[in-house]
Structures are given as structure tokens and as C-alpha cells.
């Protein structure tokens, strides 16, 4: 009964199989001795059972040809950060324009890439843009596509924390590859994985709250605080940074509440927080729809949000939370991607102007993916993080004089860089994670009566260990780690105040 169907479908499968076989082979008609598929992409190619037949080049020259940097960028075109795809690609493209003499292929979209980038005689060619969706599985597929199919030898990205961990592991298994993380914020990708070819010229999610504890405890007089954060790695990391900072300077965290992702009604979790007269303040790290819903649940159950009792990470800002009434003026917000958006220095102005010179418009996320002046996107951390990675690639190449055949030398050169960038210098620690300047801001009421975010301090030289709270031997930040311990922070008391957008050096 089913015989006919079976035969037919076999015929079809067979036909497609054969058709694709040709497609899969691509254009290379050279002799392919041995099994190309044996090529061990998960382990060093030289560690194993091959190498005996000495075939010229594997198909598509996937291992050789070190005369060109074939760059792949990992963005996110789907998922919660899908709107930032244009931004992040734009960041790297601008770095190529400003530092490697490239020109962009389109003046209205960054996704069309750039051409003509060259450093010390070595061209940088954009081979592909990976399209993540905020999940590690997807970004692994994308990076494999870029590396194994399109032969990328340098990767810039990814964007989010869990993706970063997966890509760092991938980099570790593929030592020939060079990866410069975008703004991926998980701690472990550098602190624990320690892949020698994985660099992040940027802070992690914990760093962004560095210095907040110093201000709140020593300046505002908070001794006790309750923390509420998303119950997943980014929430844990963000809360962990704040807890490490606040406790290090002598404060105490009395409550930690972690509402699960996907919570719609936060009231049961808000009920677990102490009442306003029981603690000095609250720290918020709830993102997505939860930002609004959790703050509103707080207002419903505990009372209005006031500036002297609340602080938060990047999500705690008036663009994301309507529930923040004008009483919130005075509340502190952790740095976001080290970008104090309202600070104006000559270097920053020059950087923003260069973006406006490069494109006519960019449909970045901040403008709702509608065409807008490129400086809007460039002044935001997502764009900037990919910019720093691009600059690092250019300067690393310059340091080895364009010779990328010796990966160890290239990686050593990149690891030793100190980048002089518009929003502050960035160097790397021994785990190749950025030591950066963190900008802290405060909410204020502007002349129109609207709540806006103003930079009030820049905390220089923040590294990811928080004076030893986090180390390669400690677990990842979690519901109960880090514990609340007093310790010395290198940046305690070093915050540079910012008044009206001007750092008071």
C-alpha cells in the first residue's frame, strides 16, 4: 500500500541529494585526497591522525591563505536584540573606515558592509555577517557558517552573554581563529574559559555596576540594600557586580529576589522584598517587559519610587520604564556599556562626527530602525562595543605589521594593546577581558519636566575581578554568589565626577 509513496519519496530524496551534492561541492574541482570532512574543526588540525598525505590545500583553502583577514561579524538579527543588528555591524564598519581606510558600500545601511580596508598591506575583507537570535545554539551555527563555509579567520562578536560563552568555547577549540568579542557581557567567557585567541575590549555585565556601591554607601549613606534581578545569567552577573561593589565598601545586602524569566505578574516576588522602612535602598536589574511590570508591582504594593531609595542597572531608566515618576530624580544607574551618552569631549565629538560623515542615515535600534543620523546609533554602547573590537583588530594587525601567519604573535600583540578610544582607554587583563572606564549616571528632571539620564561620574580602570571577589576559581555569579564580603577595591574613591557632561579631571 505504501510502496508507491515510498518509492516516490525516495526518488525525490535521491534527486535532491544528487542535486545538492553538486551544490555542496562548490566550485572547487581540485583533487581532494583523503576525506575533506575529516578535517577536524573542533580540535587542532595538527593534533591527530592526518597530515600524512600532505595534500596541497583542503578545499576552499579553509586553513591556508594568511594573506588576507577574512572577517566575519556576529550580530543578532532576531530575538530581543534583533533591532541592534544594523548598529553592531555599523560599529565595526566605522572602525574600518576610521582606522583602516575603508569605505562603506552603502550610505544608508551598514549591512552592505565595507570595502578597501587594509592594514600594513593586509586587506581586511568582510566575508559574512552572522545572524544570531540571542541563543548559544544559533550563534554556534552562525559562527560555523562563517568559519567553516565562508572561511573567516577573524570573528568580531557576539552580542550577548550566553552567546559569548559559547563562542569563547568555540574559539578555544579552534586556535587558528581570532575572536574579538562585541559587547557580550558574561564573565566566564574570559575569566573561566581563558581561550588565548578570544579577546574582549569591553567590560562584562558585572563591571557596568562598578562604583555604584561606593557612591551609594559612602556618599548616600546606604548601609542595607535589597536586590531584585532576573533569574538568569545576565541578571545574576549584573546583580553580582553590584553586590561585589556594595559589600566591598562595607554595605550589606539583606535580600536577594530573583523572579524567573517569563514572569508576568511580579506581585508575588515584590512581596518578598522588604518594605521601604526596612532597608536603605533597592537595586533593580530586571529587563525586558519585566522592567516595567516589576517596578509597577512595586509601586502597587510598597509605594512610590523615590530617587533616594532606588538604584538599578541599565534597564532602570525612563526609556524603558514608564513607572518611574518624577520622584525618581536622584536615583543612580549603573554604567551601560561604559558609554556615558551625554558626556562631550573633543574625542567623542570627533568620533560621532566621523559616523555622520560615513553614512547619511542608519536605521539603528534607538531610532526604531527608521533612518536616523548615524551618530544616534554611534553614541550607544552596542555600536561602540563593536567599534572597539574593530579598532583592536586594526591596531593588532598594525602591531604585527600585517603578518597574520603567526597566530601566536598576532594574539600576543592584540593582548598587549592599549586602545585610546573616545570614551576612555581600554587595555586587557591577563584573561583578555577589558579594563575599562565605567560611567555612572543619575536620573534627573530636565527643563521640560521629563526624566532623563545624566552622567555623574566616571570610574576609571575597572577590571572584572572586583578586587578578588571574582577569579578563575570562583563559580559564576548565581543566586547566592557572590557572598557579601568587605574587601579593597582599586577604584574605591577614584570616581571622577562629571558635571553637565564635562569630566572634572
Amino acid at each position, binding site marked *: 500500500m505504501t510502496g508507491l509513496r515510498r518509492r516516490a519519496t525516495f526518488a525525490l530524496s535521491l534527486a535532491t541529494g544528487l542535486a545538492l551534492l553538486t551544490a555542496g561541492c562548490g566550485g572547487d574541482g581540485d583533487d581532494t585526497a583523503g576525506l575533506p570532512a575529516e578535517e577536524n574543526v573542533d580540535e587542532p588540525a595538527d593534533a591527530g591522525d592526518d597530515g600524512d598525505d600532505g595534500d596541497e590545500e583542503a578545499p576552499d583553502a579553509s586553513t591556508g591563505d594568511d594573506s588576507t583577514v577574512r572577517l566575519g561579524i556576529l550580530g543578532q538579527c532576531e530575538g*530581543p536584540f534583533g533591532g541592534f543588528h544594523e548598529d553592531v555591524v555599523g560599529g565595526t564598519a566605522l572602525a574600518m573606515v576610521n582606522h583602516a581606510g575603508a569605505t562603506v558600500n552603502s550610505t544608508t545601511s551598514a549591512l552592505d558592509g565595507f570595502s578597501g580596508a587594509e592594514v600594513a598591506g593586509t586587506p581586511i575583507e568582510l566575508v559574512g555577517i552572522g545572524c544570531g537570535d540571542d541563543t548559544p545554539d544559533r550563534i554556534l551555527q552562525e559562527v560555523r557558517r562563517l568559519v567553516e563555509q565562508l572561511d573567516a579567520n577573524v570573528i568580531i562578536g557576539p552580542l550577548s552573554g550566553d552567546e559569548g560563552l559559547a563562542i569563547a568555547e568555540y574559539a578555544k577549540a579552534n586556535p587558528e581563529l581570532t575572536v574579538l568579542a562585541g559587547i557580550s557581557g558574561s564573565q566566564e567567557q574570559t575569566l573561566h574559559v581563558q581561550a588565548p585567541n578570544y579577546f574582549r575590549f569591553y567590560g562584562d555585565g558585572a563591571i557596568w555596576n562598578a562604583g555604584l556601591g561606593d557612591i551609594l554607601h559612602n556618599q548616600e549613606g546606604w548601609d542595607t540594600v535589597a536586590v531584585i534581578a532576573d533569574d538568569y545569567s545576565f541578571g545574576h552577573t549584573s546583580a553580582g557586580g553590584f553586590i561585589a561593589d556594595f559589600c566591598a565598601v562595607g554595605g550589606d545586602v539583606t535580600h536577594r529576589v530573583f523572579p524567573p524569566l517569563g514572569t508576568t505578574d511580579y506581585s508575588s516576588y515584590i*512581596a518578598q522584598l522588604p518594605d521601604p522602612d526596612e532597608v536603605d535602598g533597592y537595586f533593580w536589574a530586571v529587563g525586558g517587559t519585566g522592567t516595567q511590570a516589576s517596578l509597577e508591582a512595586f509601586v502597587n504594593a510598597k509605594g512610590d519610587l523615590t530617587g533616594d531609595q532606588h538604584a538599578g542597572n541599565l534597564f532602570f531608566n525612563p526609556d524603558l520604564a514608564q513607572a518611574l515618576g518624577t520622584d525618581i530624580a536622584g536615583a543612580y544607574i549603573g554604567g551601560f556599556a561604559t558609554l556615558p551618552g551625554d558626556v562631550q569631549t573633543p574625542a567623542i565629538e570627533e568620533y560621532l562626527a566621523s559616523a555622520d560623515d560615513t553614512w547619511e542615515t542608519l536605521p539603528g535600534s534607538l531610532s526604531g530602525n527608521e533612518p536616523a543620523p548615524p551618530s544616534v546609533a554611534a553614541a550607544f554602547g552596542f555600536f561602540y562595543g563593536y567599534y572597539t573590537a574593530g579598532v583592536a583588530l586594526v591596531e593588532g594587525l598594525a602591531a604585527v605589521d600585517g603578518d597574520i601567519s603567526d597566530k601566536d604573535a598576532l594574539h600576543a600583540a592584540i593582548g598587549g594593546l592599549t586602545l585610546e578610544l573616545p570614551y576612555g582607554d581600554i587595555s586587557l587583563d591577563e584573561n583578555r577581558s577589558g579594563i575599562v572606564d565605567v560611567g555612572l549616571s543619575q536620573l534627573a528632571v530636565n527643563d521640560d519636566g521629563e526624566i532623563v539620564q545624566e552622567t555623574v561620574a566616571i570610574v576609571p580602570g575597572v577590571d572584572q575581578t572586583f578586587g578578588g571577589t571574582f577569579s578563575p576559581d570562583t563559580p559564576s555569579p548565581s543566586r547566592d554568589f557572590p557572598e557579601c564580603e568587605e574587601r579593597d577595591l582599586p577604584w574605591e574613591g577614584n570616581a571622577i565626577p562629571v558635571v553637565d557632561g564635562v569630566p572634572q579631571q
Partner: protein
Amino acid sequence: MTATLQRASAGPTTRRRRAELRRLPAWAVAAAAVAAAVWVAFLADGTPAGAAVTDPGNFVVTLLDAVTFAGLLFVAASGFTLIFGLMRTVNMAHGSLFLLAAYVAIRVQEAMVGRSRNIDASDVGLLDWVVPMLVGATVAAVLGLVIQQVFLQWNEGQELRQALITLAITVVLADQMLREFGGLAGRMVWPGAVTHFFTIMGERYALTRVFMLGVAVLVGVLLWLWLNKTSLGMVIRAGVDDRQMVRGLGINIKRVFAVTFFVGSFLAGLGGVLGASFAGVAPGTDGDWLLNALVVVIIGGLGSIKGAVAGSLLYGTVVAFAPAYLPSQYSFYAIIVTFALLAMVLAVRPYGLFGRPA
């Protein structure tokens, strides 16, 4: 013959035992319910909320949370169950309609208030909330009707095919909404008139939540009146009970189906606007609310409005009570209690509390 008869009538003891055995799941559920009630009332020390007898304020607030959230669940699930009841169509696009209505309403409200951020509740008049709600729900209803007319009307009865068609539509709609409305969370602002607080048992409570419950009750009452007091409604109700009969009555079934889909989608849209006011919306909210609607109707029974009420109340109760009354170190596992609820209901009534086999 007497001998055999005696053997047969020796049955009663066996019979009673069998009958009890059969009711065993029901007993287990009853026991679990009683245990949970006793736990909440007396034993729940060391939980975030504390035992109800020692901390009645927390209990009352949790109860209010449960009931008000159940109101939102009901609005979101009623349209789903209505459509299924009459047409046996599992409308997987229900969550998409929910989200679309929310996005549209947010846009309309922003336009009416005249600003897109920092909207204060005091800026929002009742009309600034009601009009966007009706516009959003109508857009969802029209889209629902289009989906029904174009994709579902001609393949009626092919239930799986319809479910997969609406699933595919969901995938497309989610992607297009991401493109159109971006990835950031959006929110409706409650009208200033209801943004107040009152005190109950010494605890502060928000009027907006009670208002939300009021809207839900109003929707429920209107739905009931429509289904029970209008001729069209009675046809639909009869159709839920016996689909063959409606066909036999010589009614224009196509029109009835179209109206039902319109109303069901409208209800999804109302739910979306309420949800956007209550908790905000973002990409992924569609899936969350499809899930919420599914859980409600699986508990309550597909196709039953009564079941939607019961399912909403039960599910809302679990959502509110589990994090508050699980021992503090276990409150992370509140979501698993939802699964336990589902398992218990399915063990006793595989087709839900008020459901019948298809």
C-alpha cells in the same frame, strides 16, 4: 441459579472497592488541595508570605493578586476557547493577535496623549485608554477574520491542518511585528482615574488591578449575555454542544463561524491591551500568552466558557500563591507547581474540568 446469583451479588464489596479505586485520583487531588490549604493557613512559616493565620494581610493580598490576574487570564483565554468550542480550530495565532492588538493600542495611545515616553498616568484620560483598547482589539478582530476567511474557512474539519496553518501564521506575524515594532518592551498606561491605591488589612493595594478585574468581569458578563440572550449567541452555544445540530438547523453556518472568529479574535485583542497595561509586551509575549491561554483551557476544558473561568481562577491561584507560599529557598521552583496542577487535573479529568472528549 441461586448460587450464581449469590456469586454475582457477592459483588458489592468488590464493587465498592473498585469504585473507590477508580476515584483514587480524585481523592488524591482532594487531599492535595486540603494539604495545600492547611499549609497556607497554618504551616507556611519560613515562606516569603508566612502562614495565613499569623499574617492575614499577606494572604488577602495574595488572594487578590490571584483573582485579579485570573481576570486577565480569563479575557485572554475566553476567545481561544470560544473559537475552539464552536469550530474545533486550535487558533495558534491567538497569542499573535494578543500582541498585535497591544502594539496597535500602544501606538494609538501615544498618538492620543501626544508623546511616546514618560507618559504619566495623570496625562491619560479614560478615553485615552478605552479608545486605543477598542482600536487595538478591532484590528486584531479584523485580522482574525481575514485569517479565518482566507485560510480556515475552506478546510473546516481538518483540525490538525488548521492548527498548523495558524502556527505558520504565528511565525510570520511574530517576525513581521519584530520588524515593525522593534524588540524593546512597550506598555499601555492605565488611565489616571484608576491609578490609585487603597489599604486592605494594613496592606497597600492598587486600584488598577481591581479595575482590570472589573473589565474582565464586564467582558465575561457581556459574553454571557451575548451567548445566552441573543439568537446568534444561542446558535453558537448550541453549536458548541452539538455541531451537527446547528448544521441541521439550516442556519448560515459560514456567517456564524465568521462572527465567532471575529469575536474570539476581538477577545484576544482585549486581552492583549489589558496585558499591555498590566505587564507590558515585547517579542515573545505572544508565545507566553498562547501558553497561558492553553494552560487555562487545558485545565478548564476546551470549548467551555465555564471552564475558562475555572481554569483562570485555578491557574491564577497557583501563579500567585506558589512563589509566596513555597519555602523561601524553593520559591525559584514555583513554575514547576504549574506543572503539578496540570498533572493533577489531567489525572482526574483528561479533558479538563468542564471539557468533553471531542
